[in-house]
């Protein structure tokens, strides 16, 4: 799900990694995030994607890539093999939400998830006006969206609490990629969380 518009959350993630750390990027697209993290932060990176075109694009970028279906989980990946497991703008497309979160924190010491905030004020407006929201961070029409889960910052935080997942850091961005500090569940379009095992 990483696309050319999604660089603001990449910058947030870049701020959370240290040189030499091993990063697994789930749904890595063409490997742009890992390319940035390797170039700017000196991490070691592996991408995971199911699409042939993405696997090829990532490989052309010189980034390690594993062709695998996230809906099948991360079976076979060894426990704690990575420092950080990233799921960028993809959690909302995964049917087994809790399963993937558990798997990410099994395989990685920590995880980063970013997702569009359904409670962003423009999305609320769209609903009030009787239409499903279409925005920078929710760019699809209701009939062709790959998104299967629609949730908000509060929803996600509640789920983390229920699952005993620790939220270590949170950054919230507006549609232009600027940091949101007040009323994040209302003013934030995209949320980025760093989470760990409880």
């Amino acid at each position: 799900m990483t696309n050319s518009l999604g660089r603001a959350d990449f910058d947030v993630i870049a701020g959370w990694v240290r040189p030499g750390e091993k990063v697994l990027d789930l749904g890595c697209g063409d490997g742009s995030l890992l390319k940035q993290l390797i170039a700017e932060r000196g991490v070691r990176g592996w991408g995971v994607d199911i699409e042939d075109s993405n696997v090829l694009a990532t490989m052309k970028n010189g980034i390690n890539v594993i062709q695998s279906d996230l809906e099948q989980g991360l079976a076979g990946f060894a426990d704690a093999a990575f420092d950080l497991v990233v799921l960028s703008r993809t959690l909302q497309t995964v049917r087994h939400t809790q399963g993937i979160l558990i798997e990410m924190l099994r395989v990685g010491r920590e995880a980063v998830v970013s997702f569009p905030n359904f409670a962003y004020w423009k999305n609320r407006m769209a609903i009030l006006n009787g239409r499903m929201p279409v925005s920078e961070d929710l760019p699809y029409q209701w009939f062709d969206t790959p998104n299967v889960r629609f949730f908000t910052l509060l929803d996600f935080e509640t789920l983390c609490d229920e699952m005993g997942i620790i939220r270590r850091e949170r950054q919230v961005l507006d549609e232009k990629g600027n940091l949101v500090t007040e009323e994040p569940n209302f003013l934030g379009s995209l949320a980025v969380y760093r989470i760990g095992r409880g």
Partner: protein
Amino acid sequence: MTKEKSGVGPVVAQRAHFAAPLKLRSGGVVPAYDLVFETYGTLNAAKSNAILVCHALSGNHHVAGHYADDPGSLGWWDNIIGPGRPLDTDRFFVVGVNNLGGCHGSTGPSSINPATGKPWGADFPLMAVIDWVQAQARLADRLGIDAWAAVIGGSLGGMQALRWTITYPERIRHALVIAAAPKLTAENIAFNEVARQAILTDPEFHGGHFYEHGVKPVRGLRLARMLGHITYLSDDQMAEKFGRRLRHGKFSYDYDVEFEVESYLRYQGDKFAGYFDANTYLLMTKALDYFDPAREDDGDLTATLARTKAGFLVVSFTTDWRFSPARSKEIVHALLANGRDVSYAEIDLNSGHDSFLMADPQYHAIIDAYLKNVTL
């Protein structure tokens, strides 16, 4: 595009003699031996651009190009090697070698045993993948190649590439392990055993010394190959290729060829039995069965692959049930657990195990992209 079509052109096989004995995994020794090999492209001054292509059960050193006197003699993996192809001979120096124990010119069971003056036959020692890798390493020495830029192989060839990374971690920078497995399953060994029994019980096998009797265990070898072929294809592909089509449009109620698939298998069996050596076939299937590098670490593949230093590309094919994607993933996950550089592609192709020989665009693009990132 014309460049892509031209391939490497006419090629010549070479021969290297090795006078020093080779100690084998089995405890046996090959006192002296020859390896036949071919090369394509030019070895650079730093000798850093060499790729070794390892062959599978029925392959040999003639990987690409054709012999000047026979335009039809195209190498078995010609579609991937040549100027502008994934194994780009404008950039790489590609080496194909017939493994020890083979039947295409390298020393093997049909060669003369210097101790007896007769063909080795069944007395030729059984080979393990590690023995082939040792012999290949001596060929690399001979060619002045300290480290391969890459070793690539499909099936049993992929096992050799994997073995290189464990046995000679300093001498291989990249391994391309295609349609392979870290070890065979019981089912896979079972298929090999049926193939072997077909040969071993052929009355013309003569305990492996059939050469002296002027005969060949053609029936056994033919059956072995027919069985093998079934396992190299996929159900879908066979349905597509043959379905239930009849040779003569109706049943003839006898045991002649009726279904097209029978015709295909008989043709493949006959062709193979005509040129391949039965002892080599037996030895190759045993090398497959024995391969299990993690055995040295009580079955812990992650511990075994901790000794590797190479970068890896692992490729499997969705319809390959003889060497299924799940087996390739075992290699991938053991490498990931060690933090190794590894990429894995699962190619959606319907040709079963034989997919690794096909010129599929995605498959070849993956190999091409990987090798383009290999520094010389």
